[in-house]
């Protein structure tokens, strides 16, 4: 069973940066890291390949400036190899153009299963994996909270507004996993050392047979026209509990005249 896991490398959310008011670009510093949301996909991929008794996990990522730190983290967890697409013409890509790039890279790996997170921590469009499935000509099951593979079929407990559905489809397929589906392993020292020598293929847009007008800012066909501060919600009264704070809440509720 060969699994491709899409992993996004993002600025550390602990230092989130902000949108530049004049250029509207995200101002960020430092190295990119593995999106925590994707560590669940990596773990799930590793477990499914192990359960299938063979096969490997290939990581696919699109990131600026040849960034590999996040990929190294996922390789250290146990993925076998990685494909990185990095190219200056990709700056300003939206979800659809990113999906086009990832689809071309994934086709090279010929996977039985493609895993992604339901949404990324920094972009959170949540549409990319489904766009990817459509471009790959595959069925998709989103919002998986449990994934089982048997006899060329993937079976998923899919989150719904009301509870969950049992959903099934034949492989190859795209599945998006929610956080909490599995417990991502921490890379071991051995894993970290091994990751340094694992194959990491770096590709440019031209290697994928795509033209630069289909991707990047040109392909996005959208623009940010402005950024403003949201109407501020003022912090109100703050009370340190000395045993009677609940009385403040009771008074607050009474003054709302709820019922």
């Amino acid at each position, binding site marked *: 069973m060969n699994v491709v896991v899409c992993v996004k490398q993002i600025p550390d959310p602990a230092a989130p940066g902000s949108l530049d008011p004049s250029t509207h670009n995200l101002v960020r510093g430092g190295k990119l890291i593995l999106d925590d949301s994707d560590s669940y996909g990596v773990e799930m991929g590793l477990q499914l390949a192990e359960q299938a008794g063979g096969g490997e996990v290939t990581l696919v990522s699109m990131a600026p400036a040849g960034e590999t730190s996040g990929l190294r983290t996922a390789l250290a967890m146990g993925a076998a190899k990685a494909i990185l697409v990095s190219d200056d013409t990709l700056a300003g890509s939206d979800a659809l153009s990113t999906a086009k790039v990832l689809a071309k890279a994934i086709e090279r790996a010929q996977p039985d299963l493609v895993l992604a997170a339901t949404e990324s921590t920094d972009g959170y469009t949540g*549409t990319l994996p489904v766009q990817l499935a459509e471009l790959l000509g595959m069925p998709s099951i989103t919002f998986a909270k449990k994934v089982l593979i048997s006899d060329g079929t993937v079976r998923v407990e899919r989150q719904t507004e009301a509870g969950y*559905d049992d*959903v099934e489809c034949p492989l190859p397929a795209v599945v998006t996993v929610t956080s909490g589906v599995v417990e991502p392993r921490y890379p071991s020292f051995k894993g970290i050392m091994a990751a340094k020598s694992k194959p990491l293929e770096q590709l440019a847009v031209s290697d994928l047979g795509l033209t630069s007008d289909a991707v990047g800012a040109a392909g996005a*066909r959208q623009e940010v026209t402005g950024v403003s*501060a949201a109407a501020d919600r003022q*912090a109100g009264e703050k009370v340190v509990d000395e045993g009677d704070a609940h009385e403040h809440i009771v008074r607050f509720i009474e003054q*709302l005249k709820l019922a």
Partner: protein
Amino acid sequence: MPIEKIWVLAEHADGGPSSTTLELLTEARSMGTTVEAVAWGPATSELAGTFGDYGASTVYDVGDIGDALPGVSVAAAAAALITSGNAPDVFLLPATFDGRDIAGRLSARLDIPVLTNVVGLAVDGDTVLSQHANFGGTQVATARFTGGRPWLFVVRPKTFAAEPAGSGPAQVQAAAVPSDLGALNTAKVLERHVEERTGPKLDEAAVVVAGGRGIGSADDFAMVEELAKLLNGAAGATRAIVDAGWVPFSYQVGQTGKTVKPTLYIACGISGATQHLVGMKDAKSIVAINKDQDAPIFSISDLGIVGDVHQVVPKLIEALKARG
């Protein structure tokens, strides 16, 4: 080219259109001259009156899709309508599980981009400006499409208020699912599981009492449920404790969970991460109980209690019970 025709993806919930569908239809009326809905399910024609009442002149009925997931089949049916010369200028879809799937599929099928996480819309001449909340809603980015129509917007629930227009029933027109979908359309629902909940619905309740990791354990969540019940409200939760398995996902408030706008939101042991705040910051009033005086939740709370939930909440429950 002026904005004329607006489509709304209509979802069902409990035998009627979902509340977000009605919100989007209401907004669509103010954006264009013709409002049409795209719906699926075995009973769409029975809802033509409601769709019409909220302003839709036509409902494209994809019909009963059986056990298929809506993502592929509904998107393919809509794409077929669009490419046969029936394209809208704007298509509004709800930010729900199926809404996002349909938007993604449609976008890739027609090779048109999609703007997601929309929290505001405005027609500006021949263009549409969409608003997007950044950084937990502290910043608002405005965006627009620069390419051809239709323009796809995935809109967060509760962005607009639903109001009937009082117009007559919509005309129902069948929209067929193309038969050549092959492997794409092979995902099948085998069984549906509904998590039963009592009391008002989380996204409709006037009072929401939500618990986070500070509650301490799954067992201690009982005090959140009890407080919610005393206030005729619904209990909610952060993703942290949903992921930990303390409560089902249907409790989750935030970016990936429900958007709530109650009169009163009581946050118990919740830090106030941006992804939580986007789901509840529009509550009319917010009370937070957190033992960390610097917790970000306090910056948007009308009343902040710096204290231990295990002290404050039980006393609050007693006091409310004594009050009767």
